[in-house]
């Protein structure tokens, strides 16, 4: 038994740091050991445990697409002890990474259908992985619509990519900021994501919806999607319970009989309706 210790992180080099918004940055990480990098395979929707040695670990989705090989990316907001330490690291410094963990967005099953992505605030990163994944396989899907909102214009993450998506004729992008969060030159919508979605009223026929956002946004978005005729089994989200181990042992993410780290983080609204609301 020479299996790798599940708690032993891969050593990653920070190749690139991108400032996304106040206190929000993206790290591009490459494997220091090239053999480990070559053996590493993940699918969109999966997550990992990122660590600063001496500070601890924290859990984020992998924010890059598996179609972009040779690196992984994570986007985080500086909030607690570990994320503050992560934010203090510079290019070429070392980050620990364990993963990939959890289930995936079933993008194979979505082939030939319309895709509607709805995200709020710092919850765009998990969505960014799957968005780039389907855009890199664009001919397999029909209409792609992205609705993304943040509190203020400054809080919108991936601004360069938002511009790129806005410029594509095979993507419909709607961005919004909370009332009062707009700047004088703001061209997008003003309003909360559920309200903007309601106004946009995308067709539910043969469409898969993916929703990621703070709990309050999700809570008010599901009823809108239901009114628009989306079946609970066609609405996907990714849960963000607190985790430590990522492999179904430490007990933190246990929600009903489910472990978000093993059975999730991707769930359909139909599955959530069967689960206790402990997420």
């Amino acid at each position: 038994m020479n299996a790798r210790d599940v708690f032993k992180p891969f050593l990653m080099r920070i190749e690139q740091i991108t400032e996304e918004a106040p206190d929000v940055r993206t790290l591009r990480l490459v494997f220091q050991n090239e053999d480990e990098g070559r053996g590493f395979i993940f699918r969109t929707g999966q997550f990992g445990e990122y660590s600063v040695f001496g500070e601890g670990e924290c859990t984020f989705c992998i924010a890059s697409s598996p179609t972009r090989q040779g690196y992984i990316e994570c986007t985080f907001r500086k909030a607690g002890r570990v994320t503050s330490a992560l934010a203090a690291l510079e290019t070429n410094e070392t980050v620990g990474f364990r993963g990939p963990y959890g289930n995936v967005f079933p993008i194979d099953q979505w082939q030939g259908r319309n895709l509607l992505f709805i995200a709020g605030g710092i919850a765009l990163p998990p969505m960014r992985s799957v968005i780039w994944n389907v855009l890199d396989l664009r001919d397999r899907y029909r209409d792609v619509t992205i609705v993304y909102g943040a509190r203020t214009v400054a809080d919108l993450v991936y601004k360069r990519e938002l511009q790129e998506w806005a410029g594509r004729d095979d993507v419909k992008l709607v961005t919004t900021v909370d009332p009062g969060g707009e700047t004088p030159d703001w061209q997008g919508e003003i309003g909360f994501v559920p309200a903007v979605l309601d106004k946009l009223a995308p067709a539910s026929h043969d469409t898969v919806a993916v929703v990621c956002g703070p709990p309050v946004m999700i809570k008010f978005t599901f009823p809108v999607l239901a009114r628009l005729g989306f079946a609970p089994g066609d609405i996907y989200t990714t849960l963000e319970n607190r985790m430590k181990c990522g492999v179904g042992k430490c007990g933190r993410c246990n929600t009903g009989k489910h472990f978000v780290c093993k059975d999730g983080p991707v769930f359909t609204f139909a599955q959530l309706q069967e689960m206790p609301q402990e997420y």
Partner: protein
Amino acid sequence: METEKRSIQREALAKLIEQWCREGKRVLAPRKSGDKVDFDRVTSLSEVSFDHVQTVQSPKSAVFPRVEELFSFRSADGQVEVRDRELDILPETVVFGLRPCDAAAFAALEAIFNWDAPDRLFTARRARTTLVAVACSRADEYCFCTSVGGGPGAVAGSDILLTDLGQGEFLAEIASAKGREMLQAADSLFGPALDADKESRLAKPAAVFAADAVAAVLAGLFADTAFWEEQSRRCVGCGACAYVCPTCACFDIQDEGGASGKRLRCWDSCGFGLFTLHTSGHNPRPLQSQRWRQRLMHKFSYMPERQGVLGCVGCGRCSRGCPVDMNILEHLRAIAEARP
């Protein structure tokens, strides 16, 4: 494996413990310290307590230490070197004198730590651990092994189970390959099987509820907020129940020692509000009643369904250790009798 019956005299048992120590094994056994009995390292039989009902702490720390170093690391100039734990230096361990309920608890720990991704440190420690249990001649009002599939003389989980037959004589039931290996290494210390009535020597804790009835009722009780508030009204969220529990395995992972330090795994408890608290301030289980519910649901509903094993062996430690006298037996009886 069929259980092989032998016998052993008290004097021979003393020699057996000395032999284990000579072989370099770490022997952990119940030992009296003041008015408490707890597992500690012993080198002779005279140090071992036999007349207690149950130890304060469970023997789980033999395989799942309260604080365990997962690995150490050295950082310099932004570069990090990770050093694995050396598994070869983990001690061969005999847990002696644990109760049958405690021996049964190892199955629950194995189910958790080996679920899907095997836990390397746990597995290494478990492989080096042999369980020589002593059957219970006494029980107290907190014991309920017979309600959760165990018994005061149950062999399951033990490598060897000893039953005190009086007059310094013990029945020895050899119940596993490890137990047989242990017997073979000291065969001359063991006598032939005795024609003795084991049952008459055992405590008789009453079966109070049926564990499968609890599991069946729990599913329908989840949403009964008032029921859980009533159940947990006294709970102060101290986590003592999880710390003394032989099957509780929830843990935290923390770094210690700065940039050249260690990554540690530490015991944790679902009874703590911090357990599930997000950095954002959002908490999926903000109420103690929800955390108490989680404790019982996890042990009696989720674990049987997901891992095929109950998360409780009826040792009663959580009730004995509770600072506000919550008796889990009463709570489980109330659940078994609830009609949601």
